[in-house]
């Protein structure tokens, strides 16, 4: 992975065209709470960045600012060289290129699984119905829920719903996929089936930003681990470096709490 860059020097060496998502000096407040503080983060094309950190550290908020589900107070965010526009047609167009997977799946409850995966293609991409259905079915097969196509989301298990949600996002041919704690609402035995789909996606070269508590996934799939605490990026490193030799006390403290018991 040539896009892996953990030090300042290496980052500068990467040509600008490979940077897909660039956050610079991003700040956000929720009332008095300074939830994102001077966030600088660059994600290269094809890179898998895993964001970890304690609850309330701002990692979900960070993920949600990238497609502007959360607005920011200052700083700038650019995707593929284009700064995020204001709410409106331009922003909708840009969001279509950014896939998002939520903690609570958020499949459209009144539509079948197949309709969920076809909707964006039909209404945003204006694909014709036959092609959209073909693509939806092949994506559902790819994530292993092809046989559930005609069911409603409530009839599926959490793991199946989340895989459908991934297929729904992939149907838009996104440039980058955002995962906001995709396995946090799942029963333990369903976590792996979702992680496997994500791992396959990472191997296929998808650019991914993954907020998660799954350290195993971070170790095996991430090119880079970003550790956040109290609204700041405290540490960025390759997974090997981060898990075996964390530099900051905050990260050492966090890892000691989750890894040894």
């Amino acid at each position: 992975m040539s896009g892996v860059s953990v030090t300042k020097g290496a980052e500068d060496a990467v040509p600008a065209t490979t940077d897909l998502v660039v956050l610079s000096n991003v700040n956000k407040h929720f009332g008095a709470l300074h939830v994102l503080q001077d966030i600088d983060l660059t994600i290269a094309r094809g890179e898998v960045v895993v964001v970890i950190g304690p609850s309330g550290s701002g990692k979900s908020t960070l993920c949600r600012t990238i497609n502007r589900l959360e607005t920011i107070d200052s700083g700038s965010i650019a995707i593929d060289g284009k700064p995020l526009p204001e709410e409106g047609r331009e922003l909708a167009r840009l969001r279509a290129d950014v896939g998002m997977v939520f903690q609570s799946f958020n499949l459209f409850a009144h539509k079948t699984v197949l309709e969920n995966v076809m909707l964006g293609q039909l209404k945003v991409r204006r694909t014709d119905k036959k092609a959209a259905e073909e693509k939806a079915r092949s994506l559902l097969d790819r994530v292993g829920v092809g046989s559930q196509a005609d069911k409603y989301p409530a009839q599926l298990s959490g793991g199946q719903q989340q895989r459908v949600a991934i297929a729904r996002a992939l149907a838009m041919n996104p440039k980058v996929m955002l995962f906001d704690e995709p396995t946090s609402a799942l029963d333990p035995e369903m976590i792996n089936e979702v992680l496997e789909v994500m791992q396959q996606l990472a191997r296929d070269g998808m650019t991914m930003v993954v907020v998660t508590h799954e350290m195993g996934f971070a170790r095996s799939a991430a090119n880079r681990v970003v550790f956040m605490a109290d609204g700041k990026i405290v540490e960025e490193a390759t997974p090997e470096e981060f898990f075996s030799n964390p530099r900051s006390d905050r990260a050492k403290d966090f890892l000691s709490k989750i890894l040894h018991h």
Partner: protein
Amino acid sequence: MFDFLDMDALLGAFWVTVKLTVYSAIGSLIWGTLLAGMRVSPVPLMRAVGTAYVNVVRNIPLTVVILFTSLGLFQTLGVTLAGDNFTVINFRLAVLGLIAYTAAFVCEALRSGINTVPVGQAEAARALGLSFTQVLTLIVLPQAFRSVVNPLANVLIALTKNTTVASVIGVAEASLLMKSWIETYAALLPIVAIFAFGFICLTLPTGLVLGWVSKKVAVKR
């Protein structure tokens, strides 16, 4: 004792009631949905207009609204709604008044339905790149409607009975015929009973059918 009973007149009067109800129901469903869209719009001016409309209109007695359509719109401003005689003009004015009034209640029922749709549904739709209008019409409103079939049935039943107010501007619906029969024949109780029964025949099936529909279309989460 039933010598007053002119079936043609009775059915004719109830037919006018049915027409008033159906036209007003369709109109208020459309206008009420638009108002609900305005009330959840990201544009502050739209929200303000929607809120003001609902709070003004639902707090005015229907009699005043209907009288205004006749005295204000027709007799003062000359609005005839393309009608060429008093029967047609008054009927259309009554429908307009009923739509204006009922839409405020449709809007509020629908808005409570919108509040039952988890915010994640709209977020997922926005994340796919759907526009505000698409999010509302494809994702939020279809789910909202399914959760408010019963409250909307209440509004429809109230509307059916509210059509009797159209008699104040001379629309020949059921209650106007009832008044004339009561004044003409000495048979108050049978006359009232017949008209009460007529209204129950209209509203009871409405409630039962829509109650069944409500269960049928409920969104499972």
